[in-house]
């Protein structure tokens, strides 16, 4: 007997929904094994990790604050990956957006008006989109692989931010700390709740829902799916592959830039050397866990936000390194990809005899 993969006649719809759940389950089991290998009580650790963040309003707020950028970036990346365009540099576009949007509070700190905030949001999205268009241009003009260029640009953007907050944009009254001036008044997003929830969360939700609608009910959405899954068919239908690359990078870059601006104008309130705990990379996992569907991305974003808060929780309560967060996130992507195999294939026990028979009849 031999266990073989057999291609399904058609992709399994049940598995498409079931696979992420299976992946989460496997991640939790592996997480428990990991915790006990570290000599910690696995069930307690898992409880603190996944359930505790949801038991108090304070931590639920924190989860939502973390989910905001993940959903916003993840929704854009979902569309990108659906079209088979590989934008890996969302983290860089996030940084570029934050830098561009911060021009207003840093240069025109006195301009206090709702229009100022609006201009910041627009500039943030524009900065991310323009930065995202660099790999798009290199790809369509020179045929350079967009994975490598978009990733290299992450390092460049982060170094640029580091230079700006230590050099030209350093707060003159900041006691020499590497940070810009604090964003005040209309340069901050409206906050509510215990002072952590902000307008950006609404922006994320609305953006994801709009993209869901676009993907489902418009010609553009259809074009994205066709170009991604059957490029030749797309070409015959008159869909341009190059335009798709531009569109995807502008969209996902713009959303990542917006997310970056929202972070610095919301929870952070200034520019500083580190403005994101790898949201741009975690959003890749969010996109896959959400089935490359902007609606699914909302749920996936919430789950990965929990992994951030849970990671902080086990660090405080059990003294486990907060690196567990990244391990959980990496494992999750791993298991999703693994379980997704079951969408297109099924496992089948094949006896040695049948295999032999097939070989003979084939020859």
């Amino acid at each position, binding site marked *: 007997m031999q266990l073989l993969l057999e291609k399904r006649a058609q992709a399994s719809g049940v598995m498409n929904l079931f696979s992420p759940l299976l992946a989460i389950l496997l991640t939790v089991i592996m997480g428990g094994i990991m915790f006990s290998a570290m000599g910690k009580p696995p069930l307690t650790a898992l409880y603190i990790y996944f359930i505790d963040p949801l038991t108090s309003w304070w931590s639920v707020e924190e989860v939502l604050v973390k989910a905001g950028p993940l959903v916003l970036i993840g929704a854009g990346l979902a569309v990108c990956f659906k079209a088979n365009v590989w934008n890996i540099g969302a983290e860089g576009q996030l940084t570029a957006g934050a830098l561009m949007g911060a021009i207003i509070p840093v240069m025109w700190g006195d301009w206090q008006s709702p229009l100022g905030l609006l201009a910041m949001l627009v500039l943030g999205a524009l900065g991310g989109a323009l930065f995202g268009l660099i790999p798009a241009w*290199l790809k369509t003009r020179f045929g350079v692989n967009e994975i490598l*260029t978009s990733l290299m640009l992450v390092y460049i953007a982060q170094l640029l931010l580091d*230079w700006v907050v230590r050099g030209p944009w350093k707060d003159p009254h900041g006691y020499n700390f590497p940070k810009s001036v604090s964003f005040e008044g209309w340069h901050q997003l409206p906050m509510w709740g215990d002072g952590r929830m902000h307008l950006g969360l609404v922006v994320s939700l609305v953006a994801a829902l709009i993209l869901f609608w676009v993907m489902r009910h418009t010609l553009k959405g259809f074009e994205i799916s066709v170009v991604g899954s059957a490029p030749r068919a797309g070409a015959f239908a008159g869909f341009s592959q190059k335009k798709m690359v531009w569109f995807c990078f502008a969209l996902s870059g713009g959303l990542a830039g917006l997310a970056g601006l929202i972070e610095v104008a919301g929870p952070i309130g200034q520019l500083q050397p580190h403005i994101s705990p790898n949201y741009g990379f975690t959003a890749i996992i969010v996109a896959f866990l959400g089935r490359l569907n902007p609606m699914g991305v909302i749920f996936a974003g919430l789950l990965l936000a929990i992994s951030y808060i849970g990671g902080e929780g086990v660090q405080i309560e059990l003294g486990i390194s907060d690196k567990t967060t990244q*391990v959980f996130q990496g494992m999750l992507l791993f298991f999703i*990809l693994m379980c997704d195999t079951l969408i297109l294939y099924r496992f089948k026990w094949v006896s040695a005899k049948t*295999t032999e028979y097939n070989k003979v009849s084939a020859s």
Partner: protein
Amino acid sequence: MSPIEAILLTIITASTPLLLAAIGELVVERSGVLNLGIEGMMLMGAVCGFVATHVTGSPWVGVIAAIFAGIATSLLFGILTQTLMTNQVATGLAITLLGLGLSGLIGSGFVGLPGIKLANISIPWLTELPYIGRLVFGQDPLVYISIVLTVGVAYVLNYTRIGLIIKAVGQNHDSAHALGYPVVTVRYACIAFGGATSGLAGAYLSLVYTPQWIENMTAGRGWIALALVVFSTWLPGRLAMGAYLFGGVWILGLYAQGMGVGIPSQLLSSLPYVATILALIIISTNRRLSVINTPASLGQGFVPDR
């Protein structure tokens, strides 16, 4: 030691991890597999090499541990992409993210501890030769291993049956399968080789370059190695040239910072990344050069017809 000699020595030290990681990936890609997880495998190699060295006191045990860590990580990639037929791009990213997290977790108790450096070799008479002595006969052993590996890969790919099989599998896996070559097995072997050299490259960072464990200490070198493979148009000789060129750029930035040129250090630090993009543009504009050696089945999974 003259300044030029010192600069050349540091360039070689900066280039070797790039060369080690890239030469393995070159073989992987020649067999038609795109493993984007180099950064993750390097980090796993770096942390396991450092921890093993710290525990046993022997850097060589560290080197071996790093190789095995790299192989183990690469086999995870192999199982997913070769057996479970997952998307290679996404799986490579998963390896990188997982490697980033796992290495941080494993190394969390070892941050800031002093490491043991892998000693440079020393041959009586030869190493003391003026000018060339330290350059040619006084490097650390991994530099020589990287050169031997490069020459070895070039030889195997160009002059042996195994090399032909690897290239056949990478060019057209259906034909290779029809000829009776075990496509999946060949690819597994190449992936493991890539994992071994990536682990070695990681060990170079944590045992030679800066003998300590720093979180995310690869700083994008794995991705630059990937770009180098494209830049080399899948030829080992060009790969070595590219690696030394990039090591040069890396060191140029550091030296300029040290000399206090009026350019902000962050902008100088971004030089290798800018150079990578420029190199990719240059090589991509030359269509003939970039297409001629590209493995035709690169990145495609192979499901044998049963």
